[in-house]
C-alpha cells in the first residue's frame, strides 16, 4: 500500500478522520509520557536546567525526516503528493521570537498545553484561554500586520536547496546537528544544574 493512503484512494475520508484521532492519541500519549504536561519541565529548557524538550524535538525531527525519506526511497510513499509547508522567512523569525518569549512565560506551547489541560493542570487551562485570545487578536486586527505576514514568500524552500546539496546529505547534516546539539546541551545541563529533578 503506497502512501499517502487517502490521496491514493486506498482509504476513504472517514477512515482518514478515524486515523487522525488515533495518531493524535499516540502523539498525546507520547507528550504526556515525555513529561511535557509539566510547565516547569518545559520552561527548564530555557535555563538549560532540563534539556529534555530540545532533545525530544531534535529526535522527533530526525526520526520523521529519515523515516519519510527512507519510505520514499523504498517506494512506499509518494512525496509528490505531500503537502509541503511554505517558508515566509521574516514572519517566521519574528513569530518565533514572540513565540519563544510566550513559551518561557507560559511554560507551554499549544500541543503541550492541550495535553496538560486534560490532566488537570490549571496553568495549562489558563494558557489555552490566553492562546484563544491571542489568535483572535491576530485575526481580528489582521489588516495591521497583513503586509508583514505575507512578506518574503519563499515558497517551498528546503535546506538542501539552500546549501545546494542533495537531500541525503542535507538529512545527514541535520542529523549531525541534532545529535551533537543534544549531547552538547545535556553536557551544559549537567555542568550547571546536574540531573533532571
Amino acid at each position, binding site marked *: 500500500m503506497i502512501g499517502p493512503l487517502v490521496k491514493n484512494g486506498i482509504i476513504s475520508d472517514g477512515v482518514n478522520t478515524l486515523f487522525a484521532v488515533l495518531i493524535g492519541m*499516540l502523539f498525546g500519549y507520547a507528550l504526556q509520557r515525555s*513529561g511535557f504536561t509539566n510547565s516547569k519541565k518545559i520552561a527548564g529548557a530555557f535555563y538549560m536546567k532540563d534539556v529534555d524538550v530540545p532533545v525530544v524535538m531534535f529526535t522527533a525531527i530526525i526520526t520523521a525526516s529519515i523515516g519519510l525519506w527512507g519510505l520514499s526511497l523504498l517506494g512506499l510513499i509518494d512525496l509528490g503528493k505531500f503537502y509541503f509547508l511554505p517558508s515566509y522567512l521574516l514572519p517566521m523569525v519574528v513569530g518565533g521570537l514572540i513565540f519563544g518569549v510566550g513559551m518561557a512565560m*507560559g511554560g507551554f506551547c499549544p500541543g503541550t498545553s492541550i495535553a496538560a489541560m486534560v490532566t488537570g493542570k490549571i496553568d495549562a487551562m489558563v494558557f489555552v484561554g*490566553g*492562546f484563544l485570545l491571542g489568535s483572535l487578536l491576530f485575526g*481580528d486586527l489582521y489588516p495591521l500586520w497583513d503586509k508583514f505576514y505575507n512578506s518574503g514568500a519563499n515558497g517551498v*524552500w528546503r535546506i538542501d536547496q539552500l546549501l545546494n546539496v542533495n537531500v541525503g546529505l542535507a538529512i545527514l547534516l541535520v542529523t549531525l546537528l541534532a545529535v551533537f546539539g543534544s549531547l552538547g546541551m545535556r553536557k551544559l545541563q549537567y555542568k550547571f544544574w546536574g540531573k533532571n529533578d
Partner: protein
Amino acid sequence: MKKKLWDPVFGGIVIGISIILTFYVAGRGLGASGALTAFAATIQNIVSPSVTQSSQYFSKYFANGANPLDDYLVYLVIGVMIGSFIAGMVSKDMKLEVLKGPNISSKGRLWYALAGGILVGYAARMARGCTSGQALVGGAELSVGAWAFMFSIFAGGFAVAYFIRRQWI
C-alpha cells in the same frame, strides 16, 4: 506514585513516528495550533458573528457555510486529548494543580500563563504554525523557514528567561 517518564530519545522517536504516520495516511503533517484557532473563531462567531464576518482573516473560515471545526487538525487534537488523558491515568499524574517554581504564588503563575498564552496564540498565527505543526513537521521536511522559526523560539526564550526566573527557579 507517578510513573517514571520515558527516556527523551524514546519519546522523540514515538513523536517522529506519529509525524510519519500522518504523512503516510493523510499526506500532511500534524499540528496543534490550527485546531485551537478554529475553536476560537467558532466561539467568536457564535458570540459576535458581525466581528467574525467583518474580519478579513476569519471570514474565510466560514465562507460558503464552512465549519472550521470539521478539520483534520481538530480530529487530531481530539485524539491528543484522549491520548494524554489515558497516559495521565495510567501514570497516576492526574490532579488539579498549578505547576510553578518555589518563589511565586499560584496567582502570579497564572498571570504569566495567561500572558504567555496570548503571545503564543498571536505568534503561532504570525508564523503559520507552532512547535508541532511548524517546527517539528517543517523541520522534518527540511524547511528553511521552520528551522529559522525553531531557532528563533529558543532565542526568544533564552532572551527573556533571566527576567522571569522568579517564576521557575
